[in-house]
Protein backbone atom coordinates (compact mmCIF):
# COMPACT_ATOMS: atom_id res chain seq x y z
CA UNK A 1 0.00 0.00 0.00
CA UNK A 2 2.09 2.86 -1.26
CA UNK A 3 0.72 6.02 0.26
CA UNK A 4 2.38 9.36 -0.18
CA UNK A 5 3.80 11.15 2.87
CA UNK A 6 0.85 12.03 5.07
CA UNK A 7 -0.06 15.69 5.35
CA UNK A 8 -1.52 17.00 8.61
CA UNK A 9 -5.30 16.56 8.74
CA UNK A 10 -7.19 19.47 7.31
CA UNK A 11 -10.82 18.45 7.27
CA UNK A 12 -13.04 16.53 9.61
CA UNK A 13 -13.23 13.57 7.27
CA UNK A 14 -9.48 13.46 7.33
CA UNK A 15 -9.63 13.32 11.09
CA UNK A 16 -12.14 10.50 11.09
CA UNK A 17 -10.18 8.61 8.51
CA UNK A 18 -6.99 8.88 10.48
CA UNK A 19 -8.64 8.30 13.76
CA UNK A 20 -9.89 4.90 12.70
CA UNK A 21 -6.48 4.11 11.34
CA UNK A 22 -8.35 3.04 8.24
CA UNK A 23 -7.69 5.08 5.13
CA UNK A 24 -10.81 6.58 3.62
CA UNK A 25 -10.26 4.52 0.54
CA UNK A 26 -11.58 1.45 2.33
CA UNK A 27 -15.11 2.77 2.65
CA UNK A 28 -16.14 1.17 -0.63
CA UNK A 29 -15.41 -2.34 0.50
CA UNK A 30 -16.94 -1.88 3.92
CA UNK A 31 -20.43 -3.10 2.99
CA UNK A 32 -18.97 -6.28 1.57
CA UNK A 33 -16.83 -7.03 4.57
CA UNK A 34 -19.68 -6.22 6.90
CA UNK A 35 -21.92 -8.58 4.98
CA UNK A 36 -19.31 -11.29 4.98
CA UNK A 37 -18.80 -10.81 8.68
CA UNK A 38 -22.45 -10.98 9.60
CA UNK A 39 -23.55 -13.71 7.25
CA UNK A 40 -20.48 -15.86 6.64
CA UNK A 41 -17.84 -15.45 9.25
CA UNK A 42 -19.84 -15.04 12.43
CA UNK A 43 -22.24 -17.90 11.76
CA UNK A 44 -19.29 -20.16 11.04
CA UNK A 45 -17.47 -19.02 14.14
CA UNK A 46 -20.63 -19.59 16.11
CA UNK A 47 -20.75 -23.20 14.95
CA UNK A 48 -17.07 -23.51 15.63
CA UNK A 49 -17.36 -22.35 19.22
CA UNK A 50 -20.52 -24.39 19.63
CA UNK A 51 -18.65 -27.56 18.89
CA UNK A 52 -16.35 -26.89 21.80
CA UNK A 53 -19.14 -26.06 24.18
CA UNK A 54 -20.60 -28.60 26.56
CA UNK A 55 -24.19 -28.67 27.78
CA UNK A 56 -23.26 -26.63 30.82
CA UNK A 57 -21.56 -23.98 28.74
CA UNK A 58 -17.96 -24.84 29.51
CA UNK A 59 -15.22 -25.54 27.05
CA UNK A 60 -14.92 -29.17 26.10
CA UNK A 61 -13.30 -31.41 23.57
CA UNK A 62 -15.81 -34.15 24.18
CA UNK A 63 -17.97 -33.20 21.22
CA UNK A 64 -15.07 -33.63 18.87
CA UNK A 65 -14.20 -36.91 20.48
CA UNK A 66 -17.81 -38.03 20.16
CA UNK A 67 -17.45 -37.77 16.43
CA UNK A 68 -15.93 -41.19 16.63
CA UNK A 69 -19.28 -42.65 17.57
CA UNK A 70 -20.12 -45.47 15.19
CA UNK A 71 -23.30 -43.92 13.84
CA UNK A 72 -21.50 -40.68 13.11
CA UNK A 73 -18.50 -42.35 11.60
CA UNK A 74 -20.77 -44.37 9.36
CA UNK A 75 -22.54 -41.17 8.29
CA UNK A 76 -19.24 -39.60 7.27
CA UNK A 77 -18.20 -42.81 5.59
CA UNK A 78 -21.40 -42.99 3.62
CA UNK A 79 -21.17 -39.35 2.57
CA UNK A 80 -17.57 -39.74 1.53
CA UNK A 81 -18.36 -42.93 -0.34
CA UNK A 82 -21.14 -41.45 -2.37
CA UNK A 83 -19.11 -38.33 -3.04
CA UNK A 84 -16.09 -40.28 -4.21
CA UNK A 85 -18.13 -42.64 -6.37
CA UNK A 86 -20.08 -39.90 -8.10
CA UNK A 87 -16.96 -37.75 -8.42
CA UNK A 88 -14.93 -40.49 -10.10
CA UNK A 89 -17.71 -41.78 -12.33
CA UNK A 90 -18.85 -38.26 -13.15
CA UNK A 91 -15.28 -37.27 -13.97
CA UNK A 92 -14.69 -40.24 -16.24
CA UNK A 93 -18.00 -39.96 -18.08
CA UNK A 94 -17.68 -36.19 -18.33
CA UNK A 95 -14.11 -36.41 -19.57
CA UNK A 96 -14.99 -38.76 -22.39
CA UNK A 97 -17.89 -36.60 -23.45
CA UNK A 98 -15.72 -33.47 -23.35
CA UNK A 99 -13.10 -35.30 -25.37
CA UNK A 100 -15.76 -36.35 -27.85
CA UNK A 101 -16.98 -32.79 -28.20
CA UNK A 102 -13.60 -31.13 -28.55
CA UNK A 103 -11.40 -33.60 -30.33
CA UNK A 104 -13.47 -35.73 -32.60
CA UNK A 105 -15.38 -34.78 -35.69
CA UNK A 106 -18.72 -34.17 -34.01
CA UNK A 107 -20.44 -31.34 -35.90
CA UNK A 108 -20.69 -27.83 -34.48
CA UNK A 109 -24.42 -27.61 -33.78
CA UNK A 110 -24.34 -30.91 -31.90
CA UNK A 111 -21.51 -29.55 -29.84
CA UNK A 112 -23.28 -26.30 -28.93
CA UNK A 113 -26.48 -28.12 -28.04
CA UNK A 114 -24.59 -30.52 -25.83
CA UNK A 115 -22.81 -27.68 -24.05
CA UNK A 116 -26.10 -25.93 -23.39
CA UNK A 117 -27.65 -29.19 -22.23
CA UNK A 118 -24.77 -29.66 -19.80
CA UNK A 119 -25.20 -26.13 -18.57
CA UNK A 120 -28.85 -26.78 -17.81
CA UNK A 121 -28.26 -30.20 -16.27
CA UNK A 122 -25.53 -29.00 -13.92
CA UNK A 123 -27.95 -26.40 -12.54
CA UNK A 124 -30.91 -28.75 -12.35
CA UNK A 125 -30.58 -30.22 -8.89
CA UNK A 126 -32.51 -30.43 -5.68
CA UNK A 127 -36.20 -31.22 -5.45
CA UNK A 128 -37.11 -31.06 -9.16
CA UNK A 129 -34.31 -33.44 -10.06
CA UNK A 130 -35.31 -35.87 -7.35
CA UNK A 131 -38.89 -35.85 -8.59
CA UNK A 132 -37.80 -36.38 -12.17
CA UNK A 133 -35.86 -39.45 -11.15
CA UNK A 134 -38.75 -40.73 -9.09
CA UNK A 135 -41.00 -40.31 -12.09
CA UNK A 136 -38.43 -42.12 -14.21
CA UNK A 137 -37.03 -44.83 -11.97
CA UNK A 138 -39.46 -45.11 -9.09
CA UNK A 139 -41.59 -48.21 -8.54
CA UNK A 140 -44.17 -46.96 -10.99
CA UNK A 141 -41.74 -44.90 -12.95
CA UNK A 142 -41.52 -44.61 -16.69
CA UNK A 143 -38.32 -46.61 -17.15
CA UNK A 144 -39.29 -49.19 -14.59
CA UNK A 145 -42.60 -49.81 -16.36
CA UNK A 146 -40.96 -49.78 -19.77
CA UNK A 147 -38.44 -52.42 -18.77
CA UNK A 148 -41.15 -54.48 -17.12
CA UNK A 149 -43.54 -54.31 -20.04
CA UNK A 150 -41.01 -54.72 -22.82
CA UNK A 151 -38.37 -57.04 -21.40
CA UNK A 152 -40.39 -58.55 -18.59
CA UNK A 153 -37.65 -57.42 -16.23
CA UNK A 154 -38.73 -55.73 -13.04
CA UNK A 155 -35.69 -54.02 -11.68
CA UNK A 156 -37.25 -53.74 -8.25
CA UNK A 157 -37.61 -57.49 -8.10
CA UNK A 158 -33.93 -57.74 -8.82
CA UNK A 159 -32.87 -55.62 -5.94
CA UNK A 160 -32.79 -52.18 -7.47
CA UNK A 161 -34.15 -49.39 -5.33
CA UNK A 162 -34.10 -45.77 -6.29
CA UNK A 163 -34.09 -44.72 -2.65
CA UNK A 164 -30.71 -46.27 -2.01
CA UNK A 165 -27.04 -45.53 -2.44
CA UNK A 166 -27.22 -46.62 -6.06
CA UNK A 167 -30.32 -44.60 -6.78
CA UNK A 168 -28.92 -41.46 -5.17
CA UNK A 169 -25.63 -41.92 -7.01
CA UNK A 170 -27.44 -42.12 -10.32
CA UNK A 171 -29.29 -38.95 -9.43
CA UNK A 172 -26.16 -37.12 -8.37
CA UNK A 173 -24.43 -38.16 -11.59
CA UNK A 174 -27.05 -36.18 -13.46
CA UNK A 175 -25.39 -32.92 -12.48
CA UNK A 176 -21.89 -34.24 -11.81
CA UNK A 177 -20.84 -35.31 -15.27
CA UNK A 178 -22.18 -32.19 -17.04
CA UNK A 179 -20.14 -30.07 -14.66
CA UNK A 180 -17.08 -32.07 -15.64
CA UNK A 181 -17.87 -31.57 -19.32
CA UNK A 182 -18.14 -27.83 -18.89
CA UNK A 183 -14.85 -27.55 -17.04
CA UNK A 184 -12.88 -30.00 -19.17
CA UNK A 185 -13.82 -28.53 -22.51
CA UNK A 186 -11.73 -25.36 -22.10
CA UNK A 187 -8.92 -27.46 -20.67
CA UNK A 188 -8.93 -29.78 -23.69
CA UNK A 189 -9.11 -26.80 -26.00
CA UNK A 190 -6.08 -25.45 -24.18
CA UNK A 191 -4.01 -28.35 -25.42
CA UNK A 192 -2.01 -26.68 -28.12
CA UNK A 193 -2.20 -28.25 -31.52
CA UNK A 194 1.56 -27.89 -31.84
CA UNK A 195 2.16 -30.23 -28.93
CA UNK A 196 0.43 -33.04 -30.76
CA UNK A 197 2.20 -32.14 -33.98
CA UNK A 198 5.58 -31.94 -32.29
CA UNK A 199 5.07 -35.34 -30.70
CA UNK A 200 3.95 -36.82 -34.03
CA UNK A 201 6.97 -35.29 -35.61
CA UNK A 202 9.20 -36.95 -33.08
CA UNK A 203 7.68 -40.30 -33.94
CA UNK A 204 5.17 -40.75 -31.13
CA UNK A 205 1.98 -42.71 -31.69
CA UNK A 206 -1.37 -41.39 -30.54
CA UNK A 207 -1.22 -43.51 -27.42
CA UNK A 208 2.28 -42.24 -26.58
CA UNK A 209 1.15 -38.66 -27.05
CA UNK A 210 -1.68 -39.11 -24.59
CA UNK A 211 0.42 -41.02 -22.11
CA UNK A 212 3.46 -38.75 -22.05
CA UNK A 213 2.13 -35.33 -22.99
CA UNK A 214 -1.62 -34.75 -23.01
CA UNK A 215 -2.77 -36.60 -19.90
CA UNK A 216 0.07 -35.32 -17.68
CA UNK A 217 -0.75 -31.79 -18.77
CA UNK A 218 -4.47 -32.29 -18.17
CA UNK A 219 -4.08 -34.15 -14.90
CA UNK A 220 -4.23 -31.11 -12.59
CA UNK A 221 -7.49 -30.02 -14.26
CA UNK A 222 -8.95 -33.51 -14.12
CA UNK A 223 -8.03 -34.06 -10.50
CA UNK A 224 -9.06 -30.56 -9.53
CA UNK A 225 -12.47 -30.93 -11.07
CA UNK A 226 -12.87 -34.34 -9.49
CA UNK A 227 -12.31 -32.69 -6.15
CA UNK A 228 -14.86 -30.04 -7.06
CA UNK A 229 -17.33 -32.80 -7.86
CA UNK A 230 -16.52 -34.45 -4.56
CA UNK A 231 -17.27 -31.25 -2.65
CA UNK A 232 -20.41 -30.78 -4.69
CA UNK A 233 -21.79 -34.16 -3.67
CA UNK A 234 -20.53 -34.04 -0.12
CA UNK A 235 -22.32 -30.80 0.71
CA UNK A 236 -25.57 -31.62 -1.06
CA UNK A 237 -28.68 -31.78 1.07
CA UNK A 238 -31.77 -30.96 -0.98
CA UNK A 239 -31.42 -33.67 -3.59
CA UNK A 240 -30.68 -36.33 -0.99
CA UNK A 241 -33.53 -35.32 1.27
CA UNK A 242 -36.05 -34.91 -1.53
CA UNK A 243 -35.18 -38.32 -2.89
CA UNK A 244 -34.63 -40.48 0.18
CA UNK A 245 -36.42 -38.44 2.83
CA UNK A 246 -33.80 -39.19 5.43
CA UNK A 247 -33.54 -42.90 4.77
CA UNK A 248 -29.91 -42.60 3.78
CA UNK A 249 -27.93 -41.41 6.77
CA UNK A 250 -25.62 -38.93 5.14
CA UNK A 251 -23.86 -36.28 7.18
CA UNK A 252 -25.97 -33.52 5.66
CA UNK A 253 -29.17 -35.44 6.41
CA UNK A 254 -28.11 -36.01 10.00
CA UNK A 255 -27.28 -32.36 10.46
CA UNK A 256 -30.67 -31.50 9.01
CA UNK A 257 -32.36 -33.80 11.48
CA UNK A 258 -30.35 -32.24 14.25
CA UNK A 259 -31.49 -28.76 13.25
CA UNK A 260 -35.10 -29.83 13.28
CA UNK A 261 -35.04 -31.39 16.68
CA UNK A 262 -32.06 -32.27 18.77
CA UNK A 263 -31.96 -35.92 17.73
CA UNK A 264 -28.46 -36.33 19.03
CA UNK A 265 -29.47 -35.04 22.43
CA UNK A 266 -26.35 -32.94 22.36
CA UNK A 267 -26.29 -29.68 20.45
CA UNK A 268 -22.54 -29.52 20.74
CA UNK A 269 -22.22 -32.75 18.85
CA UNK A 270 -24.33 -31.37 16.02
CA UNK A 271 -22.03 -28.40 15.79
CA UNK A 272 -19.03 -30.66 15.86
CA UNK A 273 -20.45 -32.59 12.91
CA UNK A 274 -20.86 -29.35 11.04
CA UNK A 275 -17.28 -28.46 11.89
CA UNK A 276 -16.14 -31.83 10.60
CA UNK A 277 -17.91 -31.16 7.33
CA UNK A 278 -16.36 -27.74 7.00
CA UNK A 279 -12.90 -29.18 7.63
CA UNK A 280 -13.37 -31.77 4.91
CA UNK A 281 -14.67 -29.17 2.47
CA UNK A 282 -11.83 -26.79 3.34
CA UNK A 283 -9.23 -29.46 2.65
CA UNK A 284 -10.94 -30.18 -0.68
CA UNK A 285 -10.94 -26.54 -1.68
CA UNK A 286 -7.29 -26.17 -0.77
CA UNK A 287 -6.39 -29.17 -2.87
CA UNK A 288 -8.55 -27.84 -5.69
CA UNK A 289 -6.95 -24.37 -5.60
CA UNK A 290 -3.46 -25.82 -5.59
CA UNK A 291 -4.27 -28.05 -8.55
CA UNK A 292 -5.89 -25.14 -10.40
CA UNK A 293 -2.68 -23.14 -10.10
CA UNK A 294 -0.71 -26.04 -11.50
CA UNK A 295 -3.15 -26.35 -14.38
CA UNK A 296 -3.05 -22.64 -15.14
CA UNK A 297 0.72 -22.71 -15.33
CA UNK A 298 0.79 -25.29 -18.06
CA UNK A 299 -2.29 -24.44 -20.04
CA UNK A 300 -1.56 -20.72 -20.27
Amino acid sequence: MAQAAVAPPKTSSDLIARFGGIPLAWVGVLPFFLFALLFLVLPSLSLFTGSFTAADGNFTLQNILDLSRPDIVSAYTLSIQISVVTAVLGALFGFFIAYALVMTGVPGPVRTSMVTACGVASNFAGVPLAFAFVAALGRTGFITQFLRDTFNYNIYDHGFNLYSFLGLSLTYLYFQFPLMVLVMMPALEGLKREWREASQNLGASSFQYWRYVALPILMPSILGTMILLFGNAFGAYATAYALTGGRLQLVTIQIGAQIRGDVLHNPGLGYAMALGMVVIMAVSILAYTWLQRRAARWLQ
Partner: protein
Amino acid sequence: MKRSTVWGWFWVILGVLYLVIPLWGAFDFSLRAERDVIGFAAYARAFADDDFWRTFIFSNQMALISIVISVLLIVLTAYWVQLKLPQLRPIVEFITLLPFVIPAIILVFGYIKLYSRPLAVGPISLLPPLTNTDFSTNILLVAGYVVLALPYMYRSVDNGLRAIDVRTLTEAAQSLGANWITIMFRIIMPNLRAALLSGALLTFAIVVGELTIATFLGRPAFGPYLQLLGQHKAYEPAALSIASFLLTWGAMILIYFVTRGTETQTTGAH
Protein backbone atom coordinates in the same frame (compact mmCIF):
# COMPACT_ATOMS: atom_id res chain seq x y z
CA MET B 1 -9.89 -38.60 -37.50
CA LYS B 2 -12.57 -40.83 -38.91
CA ARG B 3 -12.31 -43.67 -36.48
CA SER B 4 -12.38 -41.30 -33.56
CA THR B 5 -15.53 -39.62 -34.83
CA VAL B 6 -17.37 -42.90 -34.31
CA TRP B 7 -16.23 -42.94 -30.71
CA GLY B 8 -17.13 -39.29 -30.44
CA TRP B 9 -20.71 -39.96 -31.41
CA PHE B 10 -20.83 -42.90 -29.05
CA TRP B 11 -20.03 -40.81 -26.01
CA VAL B 12 -22.20 -37.89 -27.03
CA ILE B 13 -25.19 -40.15 -27.62
CA LEU B 14 -24.61 -41.85 -24.28
CA GLY B 15 -24.51 -38.48 -22.58
CA VAL B 16 -27.64 -37.29 -24.34
CA LEU B 17 -29.47 -40.46 -23.35
CA TYR B 18 -28.53 -40.03 -19.71
CA LEU B 19 -29.75 -36.45 -19.72
CA VAL B 20 -32.91 -37.01 -21.68
CA ILE B 21 -34.29 -40.31 -20.41
CA PRO B 22 -35.10 -39.22 -16.83
CA LEU B 23 -36.68 -36.04 -18.17
CA TRP B 24 -38.66 -37.91 -20.73
CA GLY B 25 -39.69 -40.38 -18.08
CA ALA B 26 -40.88 -37.58 -15.85
CA PHE B 27 -42.67 -35.89 -18.71
CA ASP B 28 -44.45 -39.04 -19.74
CA PHE B 29 -45.40 -39.75 -16.16
CA SER B 30 -46.76 -36.24 -15.72
CA LEU B 31 -49.10 -36.72 -18.61
CA ARG B 32 -50.80 -39.72 -17.13
CA ALA B 33 -52.58 -38.07 -14.23
CA GLU B 34 -55.94 -39.09 -15.58
CA ARG B 35 -56.45 -42.78 -16.05
CA ASP B 36 -56.05 -43.86 -19.65
CA VAL B 37 -55.77 -40.31 -20.81
CA ILE B 38 -52.65 -38.55 -21.94
CA GLY B 39 -53.15 -35.00 -20.96
CA PHE B 40 -52.02 -32.04 -19.03
CA ALA B 41 -54.39 -32.55 -16.13
CA ALA B 42 -51.52 -32.77 -13.68
CA TYR B 43 -50.25 -29.42 -14.88
CA ALA B 44 -53.66 -27.86 -14.64
CA ARG B 45 -54.12 -29.11 -11.10
CA ALA B 46 -50.65 -28.03 -10.10
CA PHE B 47 -51.11 -24.52 -11.40
CA ALA B 48 -54.57 -24.27 -9.90
CA ASP B 49 -53.23 -24.74 -6.42
CA ASP B 50 -53.23 -21.50 -4.46
CA ASP B 51 -50.26 -22.59 -2.43
CA PHE B 52 -48.31 -22.97 -5.64
CA TRP B 53 -48.82 -19.37 -6.55
CA ARG B 54 -48.27 -18.13 -3.04
CA THR B 55 -44.92 -19.82 -2.68
CA PHE B 56 -43.83 -19.28 -6.25
CA ILE B 57 -44.47 -15.56 -6.00
CA PHE B 58 -42.75 -15.42 -2.65
CA SER B 59 -39.66 -17.11 -4.05
CA ASN B 60 -39.64 -14.78 -7.03
CA GLN B 61 -39.81 -11.80 -4.73
CA MET B 62 -36.96 -13.11 -2.64
CA ALA B 63 -35.01 -13.81 -5.80
CA LEU B 64 -35.49 -10.29 -7.03
CA ILE B 65 -34.41 -8.77 -3.74
CA SER B 66 -31.41 -11.06 -3.57
CA ILE B 67 -30.41 -10.10 -7.08
CA VAL B 68 -30.63 -6.39 -6.39
CA ILE B 69 -28.65 -6.59 -3.18
CA SER B 70 -26.16 -8.93 -4.79
CA VAL B 71 -25.62 -6.66 -7.75
CA LEU B 72 -25.19 -3.53 -5.70
CA LEU B 73 -22.89 -5.17 -3.21
CA ILE B 74 -20.71 -7.01 -5.68
CA VAL B 75 -20.42 -4.39 -8.38
CA LEU B 76 -19.39 -1.85 -5.78
CA THR B 77 -16.87 -4.19 -4.21
CA ALA B 78 -15.42 -5.60 -7.42
CA TYR B 79 -15.11 -2.10 -8.85
CA TRP B 80 -13.47 -0.76 -5.71
CA VAL B 81 -11.01 -3.61 -5.49
CA GLN B 82 -10.01 -3.39 -9.14
CA LEU B 83 -9.57 0.33 -9.08
CA LYS B 84 -8.46 1.38 -5.64
CA LEU B 85 -7.49 -1.55 -3.51
CA PRO B 86 -6.02 -4.27 -5.67
CA GLN B 87 -4.08 -5.53 -2.69
CA LEU B 88 -7.34 -6.66 -1.15
CA ARG B 89 -8.12 -8.89 -4.09
CA PRO B 90 -6.80 -12.11 -2.49
CA ILE B 91 -8.91 -11.56 0.62
CA VAL B 92 -12.03 -10.80 -1.37
CA GLU B 93 -11.49 -13.81 -3.60
CA PHE B 94 -10.99 -15.95 -0.54
CA ILE B 95 -14.32 -14.77 0.80
CA THR B 96 -16.00 -15.64 -2.47
CA LEU B 97 -14.66 -19.18 -2.08
CA LEU B 98 -16.15 -19.56 1.40
CA PRO B 99 -19.64 -20.53 0.18
CA PHE B 100 -18.07 -23.67 -1.27
CA VAL B 101 -16.57 -24.53 2.07
CA ILE B 102 -19.79 -23.74 3.91
CA PRO B 103 -22.63 -25.42 2.06
CA ALA B 104 -26.24 -24.33 2.51
CA ILE B 105 -27.07 -26.76 5.28
CA ILE B 106 -24.16 -25.59 7.40
CA LEU B 107 -24.90 -21.97 6.62
CA VAL B 108 -28.47 -22.17 7.80
CA PHE B 109 -27.37 -24.13 10.84
CA GLY B 110 -25.09 -21.25 11.72
CA TYR B 111 -27.76 -18.64 11.09
CA ILE B 112 -30.18 -20.39 13.40
CA LYS B 113 -27.64 -20.80 16.12
CA LEU B 114 -26.36 -17.25 15.92
CA TYR B 115 -29.47 -15.29 15.22
CA SER B 116 -32.01 -16.92 17.47
CA ARG B 117 -30.50 -14.75 20.13
CA PRO B 118 -29.64 -11.07 20.04
CA LEU B 119 -26.34 -10.35 18.38
CA ALA B 120 -24.32 -8.83 21.17
CA VAL B 121 -20.83 -7.56 21.79
CA GLY B 122 -20.48 -7.83 25.54
CA PRO B 123 -23.42 -6.08 27.12
CA ILE B 124 -24.22 -4.05 23.99
CA SER B 125 -26.96 -5.55 21.88
CA LEU B 126 -26.40 -4.79 18.19
CA LEU B 127 -29.22 -6.77 16.64
CA PRO B 128 -32.39 -8.29 17.97
CA PRO B 129 -32.91 -12.00 17.35
CA LEU B 130 -33.47 -12.15 13.61
CA THR B 131 -35.41 -15.38 13.70
CA ASN B 132 -38.18 -13.84 15.73
CA THR B 133 -40.19 -12.10 13.06
CA ASP B 134 -41.10 -13.02 9.53
CA PHE B 135 -39.56 -9.89 8.17
CA SER B 136 -36.24 -10.33 9.91
CA THR B 137 -36.15 -14.01 8.99
CA ASN B 138 -36.63 -12.97 5.41
CA ILE B 139 -33.51 -10.88 5.85
CA LEU B 140 -31.64 -14.02 6.80
CA LEU B 141 -33.16 -15.81 3.83
CA VAL B 142 -32.04 -13.14 1.40
CA ALA B 143 -28.62 -13.03 3.03
CA GLY B 144 -28.34 -16.79 2.57
CA TYR B 145 -29.26 -16.51 -1.09
CA VAL B 146 -26.77 -13.73 -1.65
CA VAL B 147 -24.11 -15.93 -0.07
CA LEU B 148 -25.03 -18.88 -2.27
CA ALA B 149 -24.83 -16.76 -5.40
CA LEU B 150 -21.70 -14.91 -4.29
CA PRO B 151 -19.01 -16.94 -6.06
CA TYR B 152 -20.75 -16.85 -9.42
CA MET B 153 -21.87 -13.25 -9.23
CA TYR B 154 -18.43 -12.08 -8.22
CA ARG B 155 -16.64 -14.03 -10.90
CA SER B 156 -19.10 -12.84 -13.54
CA VAL B 157 -18.79 -9.19 -12.54
CA ASP B 158 -15.04 -9.36 -12.08
CA ASN B 159 -14.54 -10.81 -15.55
CA GLY B 160 -16.92 -8.23 -16.95
CA LEU B 161 -15.00 -5.37 -15.34
CA ARG B 162 -11.73 -6.72 -16.64
CA ALA B 163 -13.11 -7.02 -20.13
CA ILE B 164 -14.16 -3.38 -20.25
CA ASP B 165 -10.91 -2.02 -18.77
CA VAL B 166 -12.72 -0.23 -16.01
CA ARG B 167 -9.78 1.89 -14.95
CA THR B 168 -9.44 3.63 -18.28
CA LEU B 169 -13.18 4.19 -18.55
CA THR B 170 -13.28 5.74 -15.10
CA GLU B 171 -10.38 8.03 -15.82
CA ALA B 172 -11.92 9.13 -19.09
CA ALA B 173 -15.21 9.83 -17.35
CA GLN B 174 -13.51 11.75 -14.57
CA SER B 175 -11.57 13.88 -17.01
CA LEU B 176 -14.91 14.79 -18.55
CA GLY B 177 -16.22 15.86 -15.16
CA ALA B 178 -18.42 12.95 -14.06
CA ASN B 179 -18.98 12.21 -10.39
CA TRP B 180 -19.03 8.76 -8.77
CA ILE B 181 -22.73 8.11 -9.06
CA THR B 182 -22.77 9.06 -12.72
CA ILE B 183 -19.82 6.83 -13.36
CA MET B 184 -21.35 3.89 -11.56
CA PHE B 185 -24.82 4.04 -13.03
CA ARG B 186 -24.27 5.50 -16.45
CA ILE B 187 -20.97 4.00 -17.46
CA ILE B 188 -20.02 0.95 -15.43
CA MET B 189 -23.37 -0.76 -15.02
CA PRO B 190 -24.55 -0.41 -18.62
CA ASN B 191 -21.29 -1.92 -19.82
CA LEU B 192 -21.67 -4.76 -17.39
CA ARG B 193 -25.09 -5.66 -18.68
CA ALA B 194 -24.10 -9.08 -19.96
CA ALA B 195 -22.25 -10.02 -16.79
CA LEU B 196 -25.03 -8.73 -14.57
CA LEU B 197 -27.77 -10.42 -16.53
CA SER B 198 -26.03 -13.75 -16.52
CA GLY B 199 -25.31 -13.44 -12.80
CA ALA B 200 -28.90 -12.43 -12.15
CA LEU B 201 -30.30 -15.33 -14.14
CA LEU B 202 -28.04 -17.74 -12.31
CA THR B 203 -29.13 -16.32 -8.97
CA PHE B 204 -32.71 -16.68 -10.06
CA ALA B 205 -32.13 -20.31 -10.97
CA ILE B 206 -30.56 -20.97 -7.58
CA VAL B 207 -33.17 -19.18 -5.53
CA VAL B 208 -36.44 -20.32 -7.00
CA GLY B 209 -35.90 -24.01 -6.39
CA GLU B 210 -33.85 -23.69 -3.23
CA LEU B 211 -34.89 -26.02 -0.45
CA THR B 212 -32.36 -26.13 2.35
CA ILE B 213 -32.24 -22.60 3.67
CA ALA B 214 -35.93 -21.94 3.09
CA THR B 215 -37.00 -25.08 4.92
CA PHE B 216 -34.95 -24.59 8.02
CA LEU B 217 -35.78 -20.91 8.29
CA GLY B 218 -39.40 -21.88 7.94
CA ARG B 219 -40.22 -19.55 5.11
CA PRO B 220 -43.02 -20.23 2.62
CA ALA B 221 -40.81 -20.64 -0.43
CA PHE B 222 -41.32 -22.66 -3.56
CA GLY B 223 -38.72 -25.31 -2.73
CA PRO B 224 -40.36 -26.45 0.51
CA TYR B 225 -43.75 -26.36 -1.20
CA LEU B 226 -42.48 -28.74 -3.90
CA GLN B 227 -40.98 -31.00 -1.30
CA LEU B 228 -44.25 -31.15 0.64
CA LEU B 229 -46.20 -31.75 -2.53
CA GLY B 230 -44.03 -34.74 -3.27
CA GLN B 231 -45.10 -36.38 -0.07
CA HIS B 232 -48.80 -36.26 -0.89
CA LYS B 233 -49.10 -36.35 -4.63
CA ALA B 234 -47.48 -38.22 -7.47
CA TYR B 235 -48.34 -36.60 -10.76
CA GLU B 236 -48.23 -32.96 -9.81
CA PRO B 237 -44.63 -33.10 -8.56
CA ALA B 238 -43.57 -34.64 -11.85
CA ALA B 239 -45.41 -31.91 -13.74
CA LEU B 240 -43.81 -29.17 -11.68
CA SER B 241 -40.47 -30.85 -12.06
CA ILE B 242 -40.80 -30.58 -15.83
CA ALA B 243 -41.99 -27.01 -15.52
CA SER B 244 -39.03 -26.22 -13.31
CA PHE B 245 -36.70 -27.80 -15.82
CA LEU B 246 -38.16 -25.68 -18.60
CA LEU B 247 -37.70 -22.62 -16.44
CA THR B 248 -34.04 -23.43 -15.81
CA TRP B 249 -33.57 -24.17 -19.49
CA GLY B 250 -35.15 -20.84 -20.39
CA ALA B 251 -32.83 -19.04 -17.98
CA MET B 252 -29.79 -20.81 -19.43
CA ILE B 253 -30.75 -19.98 -22.98
CA LEU B 254 -31.16 -16.36 -21.97
CA ILE B 255 -27.76 -16.45 -20.35
CA TYR B 256 -26.30 -17.94 -23.49
CA PHE B 257 -27.70 -15.20 -25.67
CA VAL B 258 -26.62 -12.54 -23.27
CA THR B 259 -23.06 -13.74 -22.82
CA ARG B 260 -22.41 -15.31 -26.23
CA GLY B 261 -19.02 -16.79 -25.99
CA THR B 262 -17.77 -15.75 -22.61
CA GLU B 263 -17.22 -18.19 -19.77
CA THR B 264 -20.13 -20.48 -18.88
CA GLN B 265 -21.29 -20.55 -15.30
CA THR B 266 -22.57 -23.46 -13.29
CA THR B 267 -23.87 -23.77 -9.78
CA GLY B 268 -23.60 -27.46 -9.07
CA ALA B 269 -25.58 -29.30 -6.43
CA HIS B 270 -27.82 -27.96 -3.75
